[in-house]
């Protein structure tokens, strides 16, 4: 039976509305950016194949609505996550302050087996705006917060200018995979019909 290591990584992006979750995902997957704001309703996802070291993994990136309450998508949605990306807007203090809430609520909903070591990632988005003059959350402050929550990796990104987006998602994939290999999950990738199945084409001679 043909088996290979599971290669689908489920990544969930969380954060306040308007911080640029969809834009980050679109920039990473489609290399596109739009200035127009279109609220995400419920959740949407894109997939992208990423090379991590010697392995090819498919990232299933779930973009959630910033206003979405956790209950609406059901428990199963969060349980299958391999990595959680927390996004905030460096120009908006409130979006940074609510990171704690997002993280805590995610841990409650997803209830991972090892909450302490579950791979998170924090992205400070929109660093391009006004040449950085309008930012209210300093990099130092963000890094301090990340360190206090168990050394969460932190990147400053701009979906508009495609700054650090690839690097960040590459890191996300790597961390998710690292977490994943600890569990040693093997899943059948293809089902071999040739060996076990009977000949169903015809049961009679005519």
């Amino acid at each position, binding site marked *: 039976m043909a088996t290979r290591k599971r290669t689908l990584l489920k990544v969930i992006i969380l954060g306040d509305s308007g911080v640029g979750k969809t834009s980050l995902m679109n920039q990473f997957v489609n290399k596109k950016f739009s200035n127009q704001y279109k609220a995400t*309703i*419920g959740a949407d996802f894109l997939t992208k194949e990423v090379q991590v070291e010697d392995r090819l993994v498919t990232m299933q990136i779930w973009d959630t609505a910033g206003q979405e309450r956790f209950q609406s998508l059901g428990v199963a949605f969060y349980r299958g996550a391999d990595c959680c990306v927390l996004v905030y807007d460096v120009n908006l203090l409130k979006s940074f302050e609510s990171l704690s809430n997002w993280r805590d609520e995610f841990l409650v909903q997803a209830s991972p087996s090892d909450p302490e070591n579950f791979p998170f990632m924090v992205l400070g988005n929109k660093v391009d705006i006004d040449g950085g003059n309008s930012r209210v959350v300093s990099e130092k402050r963000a890094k301090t917060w990340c360190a206090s929550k168990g050394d969460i990796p932190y990147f400053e990104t701009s979906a508009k200018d495609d700054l650090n987006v690839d690097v960040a998602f590459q890191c996300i994939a790597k961390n998710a995979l690292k977490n994943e290999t600890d569990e040693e999950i093997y899943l059948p990738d293809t089902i071999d019909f040739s060996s076990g199945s009977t000949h169903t084409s015809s049961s009679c001679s005519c």
Partner: protein
Amino acid sequence: MGTGLPSVWIQTRSIFCLKDTACLVCVCAKRKGGCLLQIHMVFILTGMHEVLAPLVYVLHSDVTHLLQVRQRYQDPFEDTFDTPHEDISFSFKEEKCNVTSLSRSALHVPSENALSGDNDWVKRVHSDDLSLVEPDDFGFNLKTVVLGSDSYGAEGELGALLSKRFIEHDAFCMFDSLMRGHRVEVVLADFFSAVNDASTGLSPVLDASAGIYRSLASVDMPLYIHLVGLGVEPQYFTLRWLRVLFGREFDLDSLLLLWDAIFNASNSSKKSVGSIGALKSSARGLFITNFAVSMILYLRPTLLAASNATTCLQKLLNFPKNADVRALIENSNMLRSHLDELSKTAPSLGSKHLWPSVSNSGNSRQISCSPSFRAQIFSSRKGLQQGLSPSAETIWPSIQESYWEERWMNLVLPKEQLEDLGTPEESISCIDSELTNEPARLHPPKEMLLKANSSNLEAENEHLIKEPDLDVTGEMMDHGNSSKGRMATGTCVNNLVNNADRSQDISLNKGDTCSEKTEILSTNPDSRLFVSLERDTVGTETPEHVCIHALDLSAGRGMSNSSHENVCSCSSCKSDSSEDLQQRGPRRYCSDDISLRRIKGVAEGLQPEEAPKMEGDAKALKDEDLRISLQAFGRAMVQSIEVLENALSSLCADDEGTVTLVQSTHSTHKGSLSTEGRSAAIRALTDLRKISNILLQI
């Protein structure tokens, strides 16, 4: 709350960049006071503006259109109370005044011109407005427009309906009633709330999503099982569908059509049988559910072809924008009548159709019930399979009548046909006679039965071989000539199906005790109906075809591309219209061929072992085996005969010397079918001969 307004206003502007929409809501909030701020806040939080935008658009375009009309036909809009000669305003108010004269006065046509014919004043109508002008009620729409904009109010405040000044007010009222309507069932704001319902433990939107899957389960169990098995939970995609009322899935024109249908359905609550979930309890909710189901069914082939949840969700979350929304609406209406039928004909079964699985725990991964459900539905079919156990696995695909197309048609078609042709007394007597005949067939000893069947077969075989042209032509003429007779046959046959279906349902409830009878009822009338309906539909377009076309169009369209293509089952063939015969003929023959071979194979397998024993004691078990295999033979024969008939009828049509009537009815068959048809006919004939040989050997 009162102090929140300015900040809200700023936030709205900065977040949405939709000045007009945001402005509108703020105005409404100001006017109505603090109580509305909550709606306002929710609006800002979730993007309900996508629901509001189409409303504003419609209102705005109405007013714009009115302005255009106003500019083109200024006279009727002017106050002409003071002009003694042309009493236009008053003429509008005269209710009994006929439409034509109204229109003419509305267009300010001199009376002498009116006598010279309609052409003159038609020319005066602007080319853009010709769509407003219907030949039978010329200018009626225009009149409505004029009346609606009368500043004095032709009928009280009606005049204010189309006023530029009130777009915002109207939009707000519509939006408000849609979002949090008063004493209604479907309240859009609920879909945004996370408050769990006390009884189900689910938030309204989850509850509604679960309801959509329940409906799906009742019409298309295989697809439901497939989706649930892959872990595709409904809320992943229905959340968006429901919250903005499908606004993200269709372009504006299609969306407005859909909304017309949605708002056309009553939103007042009704206590219907088995109503579960937030969407189930009003006509509108039901429509929304059914529409969502028909959207899922539209994607059926690709969904079934998908081997993982990711692909399924990709399809569902990116619904094709070019989907024909009319067909989807049509489909959801048919779904509704189907579900109604289910609850009417077999209430106890109906409750089983409404699956408890999703609502119980909020987790839709409860497939454990599915096998029993499936077994119940198809117990009679399974019995048949077990009877033919050597190739039970290969049999399964050919009798997948579980598929929604089949059941749906069975349930919907008879109803429609009855409505159209409605001759209750006649049809009832038909059923009675047929039903009493059916069991009687069973009672004769098996050998007699065998002989009867084989002799029948021989007779038919010879008949077909020796005088095929005569036979078929005669039949066609019969059917062509007596349309009334044909209709009666149709009704009768449909009633039979209905009845067979019902009895099947009943037997499902009672258990296996009745299954024998059900089998007889369902298979025998089926096979007969097959033939007669096939003849029935040749060359005529009845309402039933229209409905099938719609079905094909929306949901079944992708079927032929699908990797999960059904082996064409009896009843999907029986209602093909004449145009479809050409396309489906060969494919159907293939399926028939397969089943025929299989059945023969089974029979040959049975032959050495079973036949000697059967000569000895007539035991009940063997009796059943024999009966089952005989039934299988019967159906195979009917299928072969059907193929022959199709082929022969097309041959007849090709032949120039045949009766003109036949030509007219079968002109569509000319062409490509002839060669295929001939070879198919030859194959069917040899198959029939083989069957008769087998039967003789027994």
